[in-house]
Every structure is written in C-alpha cells, then in structure tokens.
C-alpha cells in the first residue's frame, strides 16, 4: 500500500494536478519525457482571453 501518486506529463495539466496534490500533503512523482516541464504552454507567447504571459 502506498500513499504516493504518479503524474505522467508535465504540461499545464500535469503541473496543476501535481501542485494540488502536493498542497494536500500527498507525495507526487511527476514524470516528464522532455528535459524540462511546461509543455505546449511554455511555447506560447501569451494566452487568451487575458493575454497574460504564458510562463
């Protein structure tokens, strides 16, 4: 029996899940295949509908 959680993929979705779980006090292992996390959102200049900077 374990109390850890595995998240596969470090885009905005995987990062948000990981943070929520970690804030609940749960240990998360976040696996990302690329050298850094961020996913597609890191490639975006700004995001709609507020035009906030993506990262």
């Amino acid at each position, binding site marked *: 029996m374990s*109390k850890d959680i595995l998240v596969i993929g470090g885009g*905005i979705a995987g*990062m948000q899940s990981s943070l929520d779980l970690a804030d609940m006090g749960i240990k998360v292992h976040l696996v990302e295949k690329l050298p850094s996390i961020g996913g597609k959102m890191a490639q975006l200049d700004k995001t709609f*509908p507020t035009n906030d900077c993506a990262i």
Partner: protein
Amino acid sequence: MLDVGRHPNIELLAYSEVEKVEGEAGNFSVTVRRKARYVREDRCTGCGACAEKCPTLVPDAFNEGLRNRKAIYSLFAQGIPSTHTIDADHCRQMNGKKCGICAKTCQAEAIDFDQKDRILELNVAAIIIAAGYDVFDPSQIPEYRYQEIPNVVTAIEFERLLSASGPTGGHLDRPSDRAIEADIEEMEKSAGKSQKALVKFEEKYGESSAAFYEKYQSGAYPDDEDRKKWADKYADHLTVVEPLEALRKKAEGFDVARRLAFIQCVGSRDFRFYPFCSGYCCMHSIKEAIIAHEHGPDTTSTIFGMDIRAVGKGFEEYKIRGGNHSNITYVRGRVAEIVEGPDNNPVVIYEDTRERKVKRQEFDMVILATACAPSKGIAALVKTVGVELDPYNFLKTSPLSPVDTTTPGIFVCGCAESPMDVPESVAQASSAAERAAEIVFQTDLIKEKAVA
C-alpha cells in the same frame, strides 16, 4: 513551473519515461527510466557556459525549427529543471569524433559522457495521465502548400515569431526573408574567405584586385603564372560577391509582415482528418492577431472560418474587441487553396459564403490554425499503463466521469482526454487530483480500520 520545481512534496523526474506499470488502485508498482543526460544533475548549475561554447548546431524543436540550438542545451531559457542535456544523436564526442569542449568549459565538472540510464521503482496509489497532444501536421493537406510556400506557417510557429524570446525577438520577419538573410550570412562568410586569398596578391603587387583584373583581361600579363592564379582567385571571388550584392539589394526592401491571414479548422471539422472541433484554435487566432496588431498598429488580419467559436468566459467579448480595436476582419468561408504570388506572398483562394463568390486575396503571411491531434506516443503509453483509448486516440472517458479512465485508480486530464484550452485543462487537472487523492485517503481509512 517554478512552484512545481520547488515544492517539497513533488519529485520532478524530467527526461524520464514510464516503462512498466503493475498492480491495482491503491497499489501500483511503476518502473521509470531516467534517461542519461550526460550531465550530472547534482552538479550542473544551469549556467549555460557549455552551450555557449559547443560548436554543434541542431534545429531547435522548442522554437519549431525556426532557429538552432546547440548539442548541449536546456529546452528553453527558464526551463525547470535547468539541468542541461547532451543530445547524443548530434554531439560530436558521442559520435566518435573529437570534441569535449563542453567538459572543458564546465566549471562545475558536471559533464559525464559515461552516464547511463537509471531505473527507478515507485509504489503509488493512483496515476494521472496528462500527456497532452500534438499539433496536426498541415502538410497532409496538399492544397495549403505548407511545405512549399515559406510564408505559410502554423499557429505554433507564429507564437514563436511573436515571442520576444523567440527566433526573431518578436518581429514578424517573414520566413522567406529570413531564409535570404541566412543565405547572405553564409555568402558573406565565403566572400570573406575568398577576399583573404586576394589580400596576399594585392600586397605583393601593390594594386587592387579589381584594377589588376581589368588589365589582365585585356591581355596585359600573357605568361605570368602567378598573376594567372590571382586572376582565377578573383574570378572565384566574383562568383560569390555578385549574387551576394544582388541579395543585399533585395534585403534592403524587406519589411515585417503586415497583412495576415488566419485559416481556421486546418485538420479539424474535416472528415479527411478529425471530424471534431479542436475548441481553442478560433481563440488563439484572435489572440495572435491582437498581439500582432500590438506589435505593429498598421497590421491587418483576416480570419477565414466556417464560424468563430468563442465559447468560454470572456471569449465573445474578446472576439468583438479584436474586430473593433485590432483591425481583424472575420470572413465566413472555407479556403480552397493557397498559391504563391509575387514577392513570396501567399494568395488565398476562398469562397465567401456570404456573398457566394470565389475570391482571391494576397497576404504577407498565412497562419494555419492546426487541429489538436492525439499525441503520437499515446498508444504506447496506454499499453504500458493499461487503459483504453477512444476511436480518435484520446483517452476513453465517459461524460459523467470525465477524468476517470477505463481502469480504476488511473485518471486523465488536459488534452490527453480531448482537445481543450488552458482554463479547461486546469479545471480538469484539479478534478483529476481530487479523484486520485480519494484513493490515497481510502487507503488511509482501510489502514485505520485494520488497526482498530
């Protein structure tokens, strides 16, 4: 991103892949392969000195190939973790050639050409799949000539062109112009080399190559072997310099792209590819047009679509604002073909369905709003993890439990589930986190009961 990297409860396993999953909800055994970066995480400070000195250039996927990176690199400047990685396919040293410059440069002694992949065994109660999506490859639509016309680009390429940290520093330089500028740079290098070869002769005979060549051509030095060499070298030099001058003249007239066309539903709502609506692309075209207009107030954008789908909080208002303040024209119609007109300008041929007329319009650049395609690696991943896909290759879910996969204890969120934008991805992610947490807290309850 920074918060994820810093959180004491998150073990970040980047540059890693899941190789095996066994067990069931509450108790999964997972095997993770941590791929060798050939750089030691415990030593690398992310300073980038190695990359600065590395002589090997590789097309940079993060910038959609619009610029080069080095064989040792970080994915992007603010990347987390900042640990650099050696691209073993391109590194000279890793391919039997002599180099090792990065190892000599690195003050932290972090480079380790002998590093091996490491295998990590984990035991987890639940799994969340957030493996995302791929951008649809528009070269599958021959009539849009994405590969053939340089100034037809994808929306993600355009994001990089708009970005201040991107390949053009945020200037909308047209790809055709950038290609010519790259040619000029190459030619300047070889002109520099051929110029060097002439200097020796010019010093020796005390005159310019041009003045000498004129005399030589009118037969001034019939049997002079040395001067013949000089003449040959100068002739070679001219074959580089003359076209270089012509290109430089052309480049003087280069201007940033000001007339933009956005083409919607490229691969989406198209029965040859994906019948579904990708949901976010109408909005990102409006966004890109608004930002382009911020960069250049005389920029005009035409968005060609069957209809504009602005379904979300504040989205319709955003669309209207774009029309009123950012020179955006929305044209209802489907683009039949893109051809190349004069000066590398793409020409869009479309049916204006309001006026019921076929029209042509010339632009400086055309941006394709490509579909949200299922990630290529997803089939292999779900086989490893043990969940099912839907007919499009997104993860199979049901409307009343949208983050539950077909296997208990395994959840999904974001574009791995279906096309969705950032606000929806975040909402689903929190929902998947909550579902996964339930499993953890249930195991706690079971344990408490066992103790009692």
